[in-house]
Each structure stands twice: as C-alpha cells, then as structure tokens.
C-alpha cells in the first residue's frame, strides 16, 4: 500500500492520573488508556481504527497529534519526531496534521460565522490579505460541497451533515497531509452519512491526504479503509489489510466483533452465526493480566493469564496478538443463533 511511511507510531503510551477525591487531591494511580501501541500510515492511505468505547481509540488519535501529551513512545511524522518537539516547531508542524471531531454541534463556535471558522487557521498560520483569505475560504466551502454564500451564516443554520462539511473545510484549510477523523460520521443519519463518506474519499484522492479514521461502525470502516487496526482495552489486538481482516480475522475479539454487527438484511440475519461475548469490557484501571481479552474469551487458557501475547504475523499483511488464533474456517464454540443465556 505505502512503501513510504508518512506517520510511524511506536510504542505509544498514554496514561491518565487517577486522583483521590477531596480538597487535597493526590495522584493515587494511573489509567493506561493507550498501552504500547505501534502502527504506520503511508501517504494518502487510510488506517481505520476500531474498538468499543473505552478501547483507547480516540486517545490514540489525540496522542498522535499531541492534543494529549503522550506519556511514552515515539511519533515520527514525515521523518521528524513529534514527541518532545518545541512549541514553535510543533506549531509549524500542525499545519500538516489536522483533526475532524465527532460532534458537529459542539466543535464549531456558535458565535462565529462560517467564513471565520474556516478562515481562522489561515489567519493564524498564513500571512494573507483579507481578500486572499476570503477567496481561499470560498474555494474550501466549494470543495466540501457547500456554496460560498453560506459563509456569512452561523453554525446553527446548518444541518448535521453540513456542519460536518464545515469542520472538514476547516481541517483542509492549511492543506494538510494527515487528518485524524475521530468518529466523523457517527452523529449523522445514514442517508447523510453516505454523502460525507464519499466527500472524504474524494478529497483523499484529490489531495493525497492520509487518514486515521476512528470509528466504532465496522461497516463504515470497511468502506473507507485500506488497512484496519482493532483495539481492545488500550492495545492493538489485530492489524492488517482491510479485506484480510474482515474476511479472515484471526483474533477471537475481531471475530466476535464482526459477528455482532447487525446486517440490514433479514434473510442473512436469521441464519448468521453470532458470537455473543459475555460480560463487558473490564475497567482499564485494573486490566486483566496477560491477554486483556481473556476474561471474555472462550478460548482462554492458563497461558493467557500468565503471558501477554505479542503481535505476530499470521499471513502476509495481517498481525494479531493471540496465543490461540482462529484457524481458517474455525467455528467459534459459543456461537448462538438466538441466545447464550440460560434461565
């Protein structure tokens, strides 16, 4: 896919302190939201990052941009180390690294007209005359499928899909080579979502932008990604080429996750084998020893509690971290057609 890596993330760790309650707060522990995560993204490539809530996928996206300062690890962007870079240098680099947020209602300043929202990055980073800036903003709005006349309006006058387009125009303003898309279509209705997804794909082709596409919707991720990484409790448990990971997943968690997604087809749904995992994701404050998925895994053995499985290549373009990876064609034992629960 890539050959030339744009972004190389190695052993990224992000810890958040847990503070005691009361007047004199003390740090009493650490939550490892992101725990030793490594991945690469090539130019104009999309890496999809999936996982359930609390898996650390959003924190990973923000740590890469240093919106959360990483606790440890390295982020190389266009051959330069981002972690520890001086503020001034970092500001220069930010032109190339942008983000689009999930909630188009919360991420746009309600008191700014669209022209100012989209033009603000230009005002900060570029020395442009007012006219030049306005021209550029009009072009950007056009690029995202809005008309330049919309520029004088305020965010509340737009629908969710249009607001997300405004957020995308803002991210594009400085001509970035990498954008973190943090659940960019999760808040949108499906009929509108399709339009925004198409826009993102077209922009990528036209402008050679690499995406880190963070989402919990596995169907959307399959649609947009070249490669996909699956996170569970702060760790990447499986990473690989899109079609390989969706068609021949080797990690039990990926298998279960894929089987749990409802498909909009009653015929398929009635005969589909579903692996219903028991319980919830454990607390990241006190993650299970060894493999973090073992408490919900039907294949877990003693070794899973004792040793953390490393990411190992299972076939070309697919790595997973499991002591007992799924064999091709293996049927998971806790398969249920109706239910797993006993009365």
């Amino acid at each position, binding site marked *: 896919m890539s050959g030339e890596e744009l972004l190389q993330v190695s052993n990224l760790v992000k810890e958040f302190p847990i503070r005691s309650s009361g007047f004199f707060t003390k740090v009493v522990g650490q939550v490892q939201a992101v725990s030793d995560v490594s991945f690469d993204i090539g130019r104009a490539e999309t890496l999809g990052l999936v996982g359930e809530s609390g898996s650390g996928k959003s924190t990973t996206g923000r740590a890469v941009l240093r919106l959360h300062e990483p606790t440890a690890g390295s982020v190389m962007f266009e051959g330069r180390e981002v972690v520890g870079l001086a503020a001034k240098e970092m500001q220069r680099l930010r032109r190339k690294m942008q983000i689009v947020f999930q909630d188009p209602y919360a991420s746009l300043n309600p008191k700014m007209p669209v022209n100012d929202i989209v033009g603000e990055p230009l005002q900060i980073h570029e020395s442009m005359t007012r006219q030049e800036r306005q021209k550029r903003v009009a072009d950007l709005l056009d690029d995202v*499928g809005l*008309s330049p006349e919309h520029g004088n309006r305020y965010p509340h006058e737009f629908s969710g899909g249009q607001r997300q387009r405004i957020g995308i125009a803002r991210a594009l303003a400085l001509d970035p080579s990498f954008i973190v898309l943090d659940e960019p279509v999760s808040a949108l209705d499906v*009929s509108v979502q399709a*339009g925004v997804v198409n826009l993102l794909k077209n922009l990528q082709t036209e402008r050679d932008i690499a995406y880190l596409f963070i989402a919990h919707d596995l*169907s959307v991720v*399959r649609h947009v990604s070249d490669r996909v990484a699956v996170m569970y409790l702060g760790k990447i448990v499986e990473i690989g080429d899109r079609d390989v990971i969706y068609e021949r997943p080797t990690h039990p968690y990926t298998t279960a996750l*894929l089987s749990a997604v409802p498909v*909009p087809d009653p015929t398929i749904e009635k005969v589909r084998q579903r692996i219903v995992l028991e319980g919830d994701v454990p607390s990241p404050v006190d993650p299970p020893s060894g493999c973090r998925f073992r408490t919900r895994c039907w294949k877990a053995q003693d070794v899973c509690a004792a040793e953390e499985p490393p990411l190992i290549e299972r076939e070309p373009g697919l790595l997973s971290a499991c002591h007992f990876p799924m064999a091709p064609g293996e049927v998971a034992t806790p398969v249920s057609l109706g*239910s797993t*629960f006993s009365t």
Partner: protein
Amino acid sequence: MTAVIDPTSSGADPSVWDDVLLRVEDLSVSFPTEDGLVEAVRGVSYEVKRNEVFAIVGESGCGKSVSTMALMGLLPRSAQIDGRARYLDNDLINQPERRVRGFRGNNISMIFQDPMTSLNPVYTVGRQLAEAVLAHERIAPRKAKERAVEMLDTVGIPQARQRADSYPHEFSGGMRQRVMIAMAIINNPEIIIADEPTTALDVTVQAQILDTLLEVKEAVGAAIILITHDLGVVAGVADRVGVMYAGRFVEDGTADAVFHRPRMPYTAGLLGSVPSLTSDSGELIPIQGAPPSLIQPPDGCKFAARCPLVADVCLTSEPPLYDTDEPAHRSACHRWDVVAAESDATVLFRDAFRDDQELLVAGTDTDGSEVGA
C-alpha cells in the same frame, strides 16, 4: 374487540384480528413553538399484534419517538394530540392522567435509550424495581423486592440478590440496560415499547441486549414496538416494519418485504446508503437533500424534493398508504409500481446521484436544502 374498524384500512388479514393488542388510528401530534406549529406526527395508523415485534424505523426528527410517547401520555402539556389509540378496549389518547397511569408501566411499558438518565441515581436498583411493582399492585414490599430479584435474574444479571442492593452507577451500561428491561417486564406487560434500546451500547453488548429482549418477550408473552434508526437491528429482530418519514408512515410490511422489495423510494434510498460489512460496497449513494421543515410542510409528498422519481402529482397531493402488489405491504408513493418494476430499487438513486455529481462539479451543494431554515 369492540371497536368496529374497516379492516381494509389496515392492510391486515382480518382472520388475525383478535390478536390485535394495540390499534393506533390517524394519530397526530403538534407542538406550538415561537416559529409556528410543528407538525411532528401527521396521521399515523398501525396495529400491533400479540407476540410480534413491530419496528418503527426512521431518521432523526421523523416523529418515531413522539408518536409512541403520545400513547404513553409522556408528552408535555403543550403538545396537541389528535386521533385514536386503543389498547384492547381502552382509549389511550387524551385520557385523564390517573387512567393512563393505570396502563403505563403495567400493561404497556417502555425502555428508553439512555439507561443512565432513566434510573434514579440515589436509590438502589432493587428499590426502583420494587417501586414499579408497588405502583400497580397492593402487595407487601418484601414480596415486591423478591419479584425485583427474580426479574434481575431473568434478564441475566449475575448474583441478582446482591446486585439488587447496588446503585445504578455501580453497573456498566449494558447491565443498566438489563435493569431497564427488568423494570419493563416486572408487571408482566402485554406491550413493551423499546425506544432505541441499544443505541448507546457497544456492538458486542448490543447483541447481548437484543438477545435478552427477545428472550424475555417470549417469557412474558409480550409484543414489542421497537423504535430505531438502525436498519441492521431491525433486520435481525422485527417481524413487521413501518418506515417513518416527516411524521408519517411511508411504507409498512413484513421485514422481509420491506428490506428485499421496498416499494417506497425513501426506503430504497436508505438501504442503498448503508455501507456493507461483508463486501466492498463501491461508492455509497446518499439521498440528496434533507427532510422538510415540519412547520407548514410543503404540499404533496414530503419526500418529493429528494426523490429521483418525482412527478407532477407528487408536488400537489400527498400519497396515502397504497396497497401494493404484495399483501400487507403498503407504500405511500404515487409511483410505487415504478419502484416495483426495478429488481434492485436502490438503482434509482444511483442514476440520480450520477446526474447530481455532474451538477456538483458545476458548483451546487449536496445536502443544502435546509440552509437558512
């Protein structure tokens, strides 16, 4: 059944009439606002039979939640509600609060989307469940508590007896939703209204909760009205489906018919805009535009402005739910026969989308109809 209703108006087979638990006829809900009267629900009719799962699908703002809240007497006083809804022989609409309270949570119960805000944080879940029993039955509190524990066990909460003494914040999201289900079934309801019951949950937990919901439905013999925007969830659990758009049903029928042979362009458009999990779906086909404002909505079909099949008649007269070529499958489209003639109706949007792409190059916006509303 005492009500005499023309069976042809419902599209249902008259032989299964006696099984109808709930019959909603021409229900309308409007809200007065500063900008004018919002017609949130504009004439909705459906029935729900014993033991079935009836899904109401639609996108945000289509009126799917409001229409069921009206049945439960849960709308604010300012709401103007018209039409009729009967649960067996009992009227539900515009009844005195005291009467509605007799059914609510008892014969008809509800599960909401967000289990954190629908449970009281300062009482134990056992106490809240017992309260639901005591509101409808005169039994000893100790017995009500027993029933609470039993229900927690039924919905799959381990160590139910101990967990009954826990507070809502001590439960995970999925477990809280199980508590909500326990509360919904504790009085042996005949109808459970589940409003986006799994939207706030992760997929692996969603699968558990849907399983649980179907299991308890069998256990208590209730019908479920499932309100959701997720077509995948509907496909997995619904027997019949009603698709709502701009305050009305635009298509209804069995899940199989609606998903495989949609007769309303909107349904076809929705199905075509969802990416596939199992294959590379190529370019997604969005539905252009946005739903109309429900303050003085335009004449004619409310989907006309976004519809690839729009004809003159669509702009002047709003289509009723026509019977289609299939029994018990209705569509509110003047041109449903054109949709029926396509083996894959999503194609209609594909062609329209291509045309629009060319327009887009010429500088037109894509989802722009609501700007400046």
